């Protein structure tokens, strides 16, 4: 297993913006003028359905061709896009809202070689979360790919429903519910 003892997690607390916003990591993975740009927005909600105003949403994804900007993705036949890191973050505002601009990723293989549907990995930090919680976001216009996605296939319908964003007047809307009825499905990663 592990040789060195891992460093434990602690909450990011209510002041995470001081350290995590305004640096080199942006909420715009591509320019809004990019014809492929998708505007992604949602609200982070607690167990009373109240907005979480001090949270941070992070996304990690492949590029439009389905390649990760990381040395472990050695599929040379797929293009790397100069300047596309695949990573972005947005703090939540007083209404719990976050907003990101990105592109829809291509399909990438799962652990057994089957193709996954286009998806983002999503990490959530906030005061009151002693460690990151992680989920996945899928796309509403990918019904065929979603129907054969190996992760979605392993979930109950009500769990699956929490992971699929919805089209909302030119925005892609993805609310994240931390607790209670309709809780977003979270993953152990």
């Amino acid at each position: 297993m592990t040789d060195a003892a891992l460093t434990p997690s602690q909450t990011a607390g209510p002041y995470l913006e001081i350290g995590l916003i305004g640096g080199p990591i942006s909420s715009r993975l591509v320019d809004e003028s990019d014809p492929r740009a998708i505007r992604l927005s949602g609200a982070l909600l607690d167990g009373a359905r109240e907005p979480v105003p001090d949270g941070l949403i992070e996304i990690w994804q492949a590029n439009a061709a389905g390649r990760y900007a990381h040395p472990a993705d050695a599929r040379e036949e797929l293009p790397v896009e100069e300047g596309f890191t695949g990573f972005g973050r947005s703090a939540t505002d007083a209404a719990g809202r976050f907003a990101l601009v990105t592109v829809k990723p291509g399909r990438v293989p799962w652990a057994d070689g089957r193709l996954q549907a286009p998806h983002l990995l999503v990490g959530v930090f906030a005061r009151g979360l002693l460690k990151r919680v992680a989920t996945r976001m899928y796309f509403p216009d990918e019904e065929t790919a979603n129907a054969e996605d190996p992760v979605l296939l392993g979930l109950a319908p009500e769990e699956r429903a929490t992971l699929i964003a919805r089209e909302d007047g030119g925005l892609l809307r993805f609310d994240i519910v931390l607790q209670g009825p309709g809780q977003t499905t979270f993953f152990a990663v």
Partner: protein
Amino acid sequence: MQPETAIGRVADAALTEVDPPLDYPDYVGTRLRAPKSPLVLVPSSLSELTGPVFGDGPLGETDADLTRQHPGEPLGERIVVSGRVLGSDGKPLPRQLVEIWQANAAGRYRHAVDTHAAPLDPNFTGWGRCLTDDDGSYRFTTVLPGAYPWGNHPNAWRPKHIHFSLFGRAFTERLITQMYFPGDPLFPFDPIFNSIRDESARRRLVSTFDLELTRPDWALGFRFDIVLGGREATPLEEPHDD
């Protein structure tokens, strides 16, 4: 379905060998925010085994020196905080982005939400970032943060701490944590620190005073090494109940 690609469920309470549980009511902020449903356990794919790479991210000259980001020097006890970022195999992780934030020497954050009746310091914002070098080392110059009260319970005070954000080599290794200072009398009373069940794991968040890092006539040195690895490790048979 083959076992290695099975999708399972795991109670978060069984994943507390290193990390705190999500559900920890002594820390009041968890009560309406901690997810209660079991977590979905999926085998890692390329999605989880990759993560952001910041090897040449643009950083400014004073980003790692929190005492030089304003025209004047901040008040407080100047300190150097340094250490190594390592993988779970013990190997150094070079070119890692390290982000920190903290209260000023009086225990006040430069943030609209912080209303603690302690002074702001016009010469201190409280953020820093740097990249680790070839042997995984990072180094910040800052001031010793103050302890501060919070509303969690009567007479609740947070031990002095600096927030750290790290990425590792994969999405699974992402970590946000807090570094503490040796001998803090507030440790026994802090539910955030004590949310980590294992005492040796808690101790790993306490920096050590280091005379070699200490700069004569200038600043005390504190060492804080960080080990990053995937959290999906084998769940314990039963949650601890201590």
